[in-house]
């Protein structure tokens, strides 16, 4: 059997039955994550990036959700797996980090208690051994004075410290895969840099695969090996970070780069940006979802563009190759 990637998502779709009909939150998403690699999943609000992430661990519990496709972790199918078995995988072989660390922490127990509980749920360590391990994990996550921090309650810690505690919990059972939903968005840049360095060390030292959801292309360039850009529930462009950042091929990706002011070099008089608003109701039934905001839209955009290989990436756009090659990153003059 050929080697399968750590995480293999094929044709994943998530839709929600609502009073106003079916909302397609995620449509036909396919992704691979290798061990020790980081996939950056980028998109604006409503792009379906969080729903994609939640469906990996079977965390979409809405009875009106309709899920199809395949999610395989280490060759094992997770879609349709009974909850009891999923619970043994969550936390042990795959862990999740949320944007708000208080989502994962209870205010009524010390952080030490919570890490010990997590370790003992998935292993046969004694209480004392689990506690020693908790202290060691906190130290590894860059928490000063870990022996004292285990006695603290979450409210006594800063946001950056709480996020480190959550990461310590996530890695406590040495998971093969970490899925992280905007884990640094609420943090200051100096703390963000430390958390990104920590995640980078984890994947190098432990070979953990990471899916990192963010809206920040800068963060992607810091941490990811591959990147997938989502718009209205679909992947519009994906590929290795260097290739995609050097020459974005999809008008939306290009627009995202043009929306971000450069930190060095000449300042543009105006940001080019993208006109209009991101769609709020998932993928349209037909056609390219980005066409209404796209300066290049033409007749073929009435049909849905397939995601096809092009120049080292995969792009879902009908525009001729030459047009797409003309896209330049803003601020390129600086480099």
């Amino acid at each position: 059997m050929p080697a399968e990637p750590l995480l293999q998502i094929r044709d994943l779709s998530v839709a929600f039955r609502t009073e106003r009909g079916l909302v397609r939150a995620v449509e036909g998403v396919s992704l691979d994550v290798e061990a020790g690699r980081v996939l950056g999943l980028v998109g604006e609000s409503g792009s379906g990036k969080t729903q994609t992430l939640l469906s990996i661990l079977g965390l979409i519990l809405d009875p009106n959700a309709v899920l199809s496709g395949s999610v395989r972790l280490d060759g094992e199918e997770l879609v349709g797996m009974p909850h009891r078995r999923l619970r043994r995988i969550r936390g042990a072989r795959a862990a999740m980090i949320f944007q708000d660390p208080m989502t994962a922490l209870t205010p009524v127990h010390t952080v030490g208690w919570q890490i010990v509980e997590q370790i003992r749920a998935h292993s046969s360590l004694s209480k004392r051994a689990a506690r020693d391990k908790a202290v060691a994990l906190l130290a590894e996550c860059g928490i000063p004075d870990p022996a004292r921090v285990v006695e603290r309650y979450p409210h006594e810690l800063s946001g950056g410290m709480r996020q480190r505690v959550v990461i310590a919990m996530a890695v406590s059972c040495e998971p093969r895969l970490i899925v992280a939903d905007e884990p640094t968005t609420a943090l200051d840049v100096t703390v963000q840099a430390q958390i990104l360095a920590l995640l980078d060390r984890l994947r190098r030292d432990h070979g953990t695969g990471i899916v990192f959801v963010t809206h920040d292309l800068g963060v992607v360039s810091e941490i990811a090996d591959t990147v997938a850009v989502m718009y209205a529930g679909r992947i519009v462009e994906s590929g290795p970070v260097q290739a995609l950042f050097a020459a974005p091929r999809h008008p939306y990706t290009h627009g995202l780069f043009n929306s971000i002011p450069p930190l060095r070099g000449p300042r543009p008089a105006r940001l080019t940006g993208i006109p209009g608003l991101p769609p709020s109701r998932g993928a349209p039934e037909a056609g390219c979802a980005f066409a209404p905001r796209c300066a290049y839209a033409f007749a073929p955009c009435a049909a849905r563009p397939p995601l096809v290989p092009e120049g080292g990436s995969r792009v879902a756009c009908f525009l001729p190759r030459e047009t797409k090659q003309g896209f330049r990153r803003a601020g390129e003059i600086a480099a």
Partner: protein
Amino acid sequence: MTAMPLLGPLAAAAPAAAAEPRPLVRASGLTKRFVTGGSWFPSRRRVLTAVDDVSFAVMPGETLGLVGESGCGKSTLGRCLTRLHDLSGGRLEFDGRDIGALPMRRMRPLRAELQMVFQDPHASLNPRRRIGDLLAEPLRVHRLASPSEIEARIAELLASVELPADFSRRYPHELSGGQRQRIGIARALALRPKLIVADEPVSALDVSVQAQIVNLFCDLRDRFNLTYVFIAHDLAVVRQISTRVAVMYLGAIVEIGDVDAIFEAPRHPYTAALLDAIPEPHLGARKARSARLPGKEPPSPANIPAGCRFEPRCARARDRCRKERPRLEAKDGGTLAACHFPL
């Protein structure tokens, strides 16, 4: 469009000019303290100095970007400038008038001239009222338009923030985040202010929408001769919109200067560390880091170090930094920095 309108006010505000124009805002020794805790146990009362002896001036037409990490006091300073907070000490002049100690009743007519735009427009727009009413309210309160003029003025305001006139019939919940922020800006514009203090006005928006609002801020500044104090944690946005930048740390300005000087040749180690920490998508690769901060927690504003406030986290700190607090003074390179051993 060229870059000139952006850079124009900067040249006008050069300190070397012979007939120096009067600053629109001048703060000297501005201080704001909060007393926390102790409502049951007075012994637990703590004094927290959110803004500590801050002095600066903003020239007409200038945009002063105010940056720093959460808890550095940038929002509190913004609220002090518009007198949404009473000052604990220091002087505040607006357009030549001393407004630092004006009672609320006498502050009121001045409010028309100094307006504020907030991060979350949803929280500042009454959900039960139509956009038209929300825009008419400041006009009525300040009697700036007769009832017959109000409708035309509302249409004009909506047009200036690039929204169609029929938006006046809508309710806030019908609008997207970007559209709501446009309404927040239109409301601030309604009274034809001289100064707008904008507190994180784009940080809750998606990047593509954020670019539109940043452009709008720039256009309005040129059209209505506005002066901005633009508070944000996103340094790239601040660089795009500002002519001068002030970097705050633990309640004080540690460096202030021309936007290009601050970004290209920062003198304060904290400014350098802050710039260093920002991931840059346009580099297309992992950024080489030099000045990473140690993993230490920043000290709390309830316990500001006696010497340099940045000393506990500073790689360049020496003995003198622990003992003597550096003053904000001119360094070569064009910025003012509060550091004994600048970069």
